[in-house]
């Protein structure tokens, strides 16, 4: 009996470590192979302080967590700009350094490690027998589960998933990607140390073998088997992985010496096979056992899509005649543009990449409640202008003033918070999030995105989440995509992704919208929908700047047009004036 109790406790404690890895790997998308090493920091700190200094194991655990938190944060600092393969290598290096030092440092017992730890004393209760451990292990795993769930399934979890899917797009929506990445690394490292210390307290030893490579793999296997981004799945994965060994030994009767090899072969093969057949694991992300048990079994993942599907808004607008606007309208456009107050002004903005001048002495004005177009041949630097304005590229010289405030030197997320957001030419939706989540992520000032708000049970977070959802649904409705709320963005057609990306920037409620080719590449019958929407946005008093190739689009939308060539603004005025300039017509308009 006590043997099975031991397996149960093992499931719980391994599970606790795997849960924290899932928060890091599954939710935030940070592939770390150093997780077991952070567990080792917790285990060794607890073991060393209790053996050498007679500390209570809880105190040692806390110290271990603090050390792991600091180290985890430090590791995350360089990880900010590294791609996945460098992150794997960095964590591999860190893991080797940590384990190497633990083995090499004489006071930690070398390859033998620290053994014969005293029985842990939990407020006077000495945990000696296997059954003593059931309750403490349950409490330990519950603590980790609650923390991971609280963060993972909150607005902050949504930001972390955004980080996983596309950090650039997340940052462009005003989220401080850097801070999230660093803090989630620190937090999960501390949680790993906590689980590692509990493991050492239960085993009453901390050795290099306990936290070695096989252990690291076991933890990864638990997360992958159970389902990346699903915490209940991780506990299921822990159960499967831990129980594999006794099942092999007792049921299939493989001799003990070979059982551990066979077990590792099964893990290994299963990992490879699973990645091929069911990469999402046993319980996929977003699957809730609780909802499933209540009979809510088939969450809608697909809307019947026919070739004829058009956004609902089109039905109201298609009766509009599709002709070029008369010249009189364009002149009115230009007059209102000159009368409108300036919202954004750039002065002398230049940027060179080596010998290439990407932008030279840019003088651009965006005016309130108007649409400004940026046209020019391919490679003229139009998208570079957006990158400069939003802080993705820092200009060499010049100034960018938004409502009188200097933007140069701010990070993309800070620019977004000042009220200027952009879309991307390649759209950059968060593919594995639903359309609704995509838009909800864009809503600003969500209390549930901060650690302090999540630290205590907080009605405000819940209420704000309901408001966020309502707002996001409104914007989905505005672009005619409400029926797709629960569909993952990856399932959308290209035209739909463009509508979604418009809904996403609108949900930020920013005053200035920079739209990179909003109508390019989409079905002709949708173009008018898109233009209609952009005009409505302008009529709400927002300031819009579009980069666009389609002259029909520019002609209809633009109140004022800048013409760009080789990183310079070479002309401006109405589109009619520009098309009537012979030189420009030859350079670009091709007539």
């Amino acid at each position, binding site marked *: 009996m006590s043997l099975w109790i031991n397996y149960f406790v093992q499931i719980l404690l391994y599970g606790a470590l795997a849960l924290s890895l899932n928060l890091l790997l599954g939710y935030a998308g940070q*592939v770390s192979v150093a997780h077991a090493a952070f567990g080792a920091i917790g285990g060794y700190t607890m073991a060393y302080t209790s053996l050498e200094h007679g500390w209570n194991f809880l105190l040692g655990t806390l110290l271990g967590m603090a050390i792991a938190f600091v180290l985890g944060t430090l590791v995350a*600092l*360089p*990880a*900010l*700009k*590294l791609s*996945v*393969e*460098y992150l*794997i*290598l*960095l964590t*591999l*290096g*860190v893991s*080797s*350094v940590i384990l*190497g*030092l633990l*083995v*090499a440092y004489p006071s930690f017992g070398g390859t033998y490690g620290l053994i014969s730890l005293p029985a842990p004393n939990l407020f006077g209760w000495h945990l000696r027998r296997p059954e003593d451990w059931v309750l403490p292990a349950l409490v330990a795993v519950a603590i980790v589960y609650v923390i991971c769930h609280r963060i993972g399934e909150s607005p902050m979890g949504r930001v972390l998933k955004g980080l996983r899917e596309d950090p650039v797009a997340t940052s462009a929506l005003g989220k401080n990607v850097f801070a999230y990445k660093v803090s989630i690394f620190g937090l999960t490292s501390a949680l790993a140390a906590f689980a590692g210390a509990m493991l050492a307290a239960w085993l009453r030893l901390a050795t290099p073998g306990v936290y070695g*490579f*096989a252990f690291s*793999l076991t933890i*990864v*296997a638990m997360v*992958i088997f159970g389902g990346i981004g699903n915490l209940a799945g991780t506990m299921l994965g822990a159960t499967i992985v831990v129980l594999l060994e006794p099942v092999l030994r007792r049921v299939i009767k493989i001799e003990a010496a*070979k059982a551990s*090899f*066979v077990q*590792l*072969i*099964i*893990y*290994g*093969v*299963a*990992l*490879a096979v699973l*990645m*091929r057949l069911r*990469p999402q694991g046993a319980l996929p992300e977003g699957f809730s056992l609780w909802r499933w048990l209540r009979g809510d079994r088939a969450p809608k993942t697909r809307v019947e899509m026919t070739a004829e599907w058009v956004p609902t808004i089109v039905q109201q607008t298609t009766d509009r005649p599709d002709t070029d606007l008369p010249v009189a309208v364009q002149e009115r456009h230009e007059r209102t543009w000159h009368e409108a107050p300036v919202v954004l002004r750039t*002065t*002398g903005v230049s940027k060179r990449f080596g010998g290439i001048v990407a932008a030279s002495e840019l003088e651009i004005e965006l005016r309130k409640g108007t649409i400004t177009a940026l046209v020019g041949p391919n490679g003229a630097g139009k998208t570079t202008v957006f990158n400069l304005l939003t802080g993705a590229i*820092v*200009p*060499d*010289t*010049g*100034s960018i003033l938004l409502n009188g405030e*200097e933007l*140069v*030197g701010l990070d993309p997320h800070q620019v977004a918070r000042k009220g200027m957001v952009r879309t991307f030419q390649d759209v950059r939706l968060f*593919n594995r999030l639903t359309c609704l989540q995509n838009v909800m992520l864009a809503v600003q000032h969500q209390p549930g995105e901060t650690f302090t708000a999540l630290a205590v049970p907080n009605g405000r977070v819940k209420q704000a989440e309901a408001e966020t959802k309502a707002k996001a649904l409104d914007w989905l409705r505005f672009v005619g995509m409400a029926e797709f709320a629960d569909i993952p963005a990856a399932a959308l057609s290209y035209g739909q992704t463009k509508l979604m990306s418009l809904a996403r920037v609108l949900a930020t409620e920013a005053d200035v919208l920079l739209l990179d080719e909003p109508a390019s590449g989409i079905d002709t019958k949708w173009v008018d929908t898109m233009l209609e929407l952009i005009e409505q946005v302008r009529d709400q008093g927002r300031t819009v700047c579009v980069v666009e190739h389609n002259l029909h689009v520019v002609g209809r939308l633009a109140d004022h047009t800048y013409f760009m060539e080789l990183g310079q603004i070479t002309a401006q005025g109405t589109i009619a004036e520009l098309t009537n300039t012979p030189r420009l017509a030859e350079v670009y308009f091709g007539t």
Partner: protein
Amino acid sequence: MLALTFETFRQLTVDGFFRGCSYGLLGVGFALILGVTGRFHFAYGFLYTLAAYLAFTFAFRVNWPFWLSAAIGVVLASVGGSLIEARVYRPLARNAGPTALLAVFVAALGIGIAGENAIRLLWGANTQSFYGPTKEPYTVWDAIFINFDVWQAASGITITLALAAMLRYTALGRRIKATRANPDLARTIGIDSDRVYVIVFFLGTFCASVAAIWYALKYTVDPAMGTLPVTYAFVTAFLGGTQRSPIRVFSMGIVVALIEQYSSIWLEVRYTQTAVFVVLVLYLTYLAIKSSAWTARFSRPRIARA
């Protein structure tokens, strides 16, 4: 501890050079695979071990001549590398789309651990001794080394130069470089990138297998012998640059081994391995700081007020 004699220094340098030829060859193979295919091939260490075990089996169980057995081991392991790409990584990557790197990494981790334990199950978990040609010591420049060291260095340098020449002067080399630069574009001009990947896995594993034979001859074979070399292969390949010339990566292997050897002057031997990883972590940190967003953080542009 700082009582360093010139003699010790020479021995460390010679040891570092020969050891570095092994790291270099491992790094060249890994860099080729990662640089061209983008697959984080963690099962590299398993194939390294497999080559040694296959050679061992043909030489001492089937009793074939040693060099023939070694060649068969190297070739079979290399074919194994190609098979892993064609049968596991490729379908996996197609299926996983944008998350291919993680999927391949996890699968490779799985194959590595399954393979290592399959070797334990089939050949036994113990160390096996490996006798080939007779070991002959040399003393040059007051430093001692053996004939295997020389052969290892010679084969490493030869393979690296041959690879570099192949990449530079042959049609296959141009196809590989085109695929490395942009697989999709390469496909549009008629390069069968699937085939290139398979060839690259063969060549990469070939490098590792040759290194494995020399290691086995110098020491012994055991199921875990691939764990450490694969880590050194990663380090060498990344420090050298996975997209760079094999010659540069190979030289980086020697630099890594020299760092490891020289660090024993100041550090106790048990810390020297860790020293290499410290260098790696520092290098990656440097890379991160060098990249634009960070430098921008520390050097604000001058603002020209109008």
